[in-house]
């Protein structure tokens, strides 16, 4: 049942992207309705500022409109495409702000205090949304070390080399934790979603 619903959602979203590629405004507006909340929430989680989050979401929707014809379904679902854009734009914006305001050192210090803050806070919430709860359960099943690596990469935008340096661990260890963590998440989500 869930699988059917997901496939239906994906079909609808693929159709919307195809229509946007043909410059259909109604499709774009429908996609905005479907995606704007999760994109804004994602950008806000990174940036913590309403104005910055709005700027990022606006940029992403402009890209959706301009680049819909370039969307390649073999590289991920439509939602993956737009969420990846949102995440990367948010991280770029953080880095740019840090350079300009010379706050990089402050941020670096902050990120080493407790690398699992973002995920830990997220896990402490009770989610009325079943999908969110399943995700939280899946993430909870990871070891703390795996969660830290995933958080530093996904929510902080660090590269594997930066993570290894910050944690004082060999690069191979970081790679192994990322692999085990994400593969375990995949297994859990494949079963339940």
């Amino acid at each position, binding site marked *: 049942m869930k699988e059917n619903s997901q496939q239906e959602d994906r079909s609808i979203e693929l159709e919307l992207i195809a229509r946007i590629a043909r410059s259909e405004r109604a499709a774009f507006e429908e996609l905005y309705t479907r995606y704007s*909340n999760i994109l804004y*929430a994602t950008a806000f989680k990174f940036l913590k500022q309403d104005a910055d989050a*709005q700027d990022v979401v606006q940029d992403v929707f402009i890209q959706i409109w301009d680049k819909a014809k370039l969307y390649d379904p073999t590289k991920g679902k439509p939602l993956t495409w737009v969420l*990846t854009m949102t995440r990367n*734009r948010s991280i770029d914006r953080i880095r740019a702000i840090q350079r300009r305001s010379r706050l990089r050192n402050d941020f670096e210090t902050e990120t080493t205090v407790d690398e699992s803050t973002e995920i830990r806070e*997220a896990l402490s919430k009770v989610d009325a949304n079943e999908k*969110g709860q399943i*995700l939280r359960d899946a993430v909870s099943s990871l070891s703390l070390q795996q969660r830290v690596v995933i958080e530093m990469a996904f929510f902080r935008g660090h590269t594997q080399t930066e993570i290894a340096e910050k944690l004082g661990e060999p690069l191979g260890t970081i790679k192994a934790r990322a*692999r085990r963590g*994400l593969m375990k998440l995949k297994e859990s989500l494949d079963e339940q979603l």
Partner: protein
Amino acid sequence: MTHDQIEELASLAALGALDGEDLVFWEETKISDPKAGKLQAELNDVAAQLSFLATETKAPDELRKRVMNTVFASDHDRKPGNTPVNPQSHLGWAATAAVAAIAILALVGTAGITADKESVVVADARPNPQDLHIPLRGYGDYAGVRAGVLWDSGQLGWYVQAQGLPSLPATHRYHVWAVSPNNQLQSCGELVTTSTGTARCFVLPANSIDSMKGFAVTVEPIGTTPSQPGTPALLISPQIQS
């Protein structure tokens, strides 16, 4: 390459954490092994789910109007140069493309906003979005050479790569240059050929490169520091969009 190594690189790529040689190696692996690309696509979907850990928040109502007004502004307003530019957004596109997928990019800088390297404008110059390489304007023996530019969002620099370059006599080497908008060439160092036949050079957007429209490769005598380049053998990314 073992299955575990493929899973490691695919996982890190999906998390946007691959950098350095691993990033280049992974992009090459995906070209030669379709299963690698498929695995990364699956893991991209998994990683994207992490966004749902964000607290559910409703996008502000005014944002919808703002987005619609911007997207559906007149063509004139949205043409490059007429749209108000958020300098960070350009690099954002670069990072998005590099992290999300195979990204072979061409570069074009815009005068006036190049003091901050975040504002370097990056345009996808592939004539066909499905292509993995930008066709080169090759000459003679260079016509079969394949090359591209890969943006490394982690290191904020470019890998200039080429395959199939003819062997050079021991007295000469390949050299990479950034091509400025007025076709002046700025040195970016040697294009070192690896044992696998791939030639590669990492270029940081140092202060000397304020803007560029692509990269050139020349043949230079070993032991010299070329201040005046020889005749460019290859020009990467001749089909630049702005």
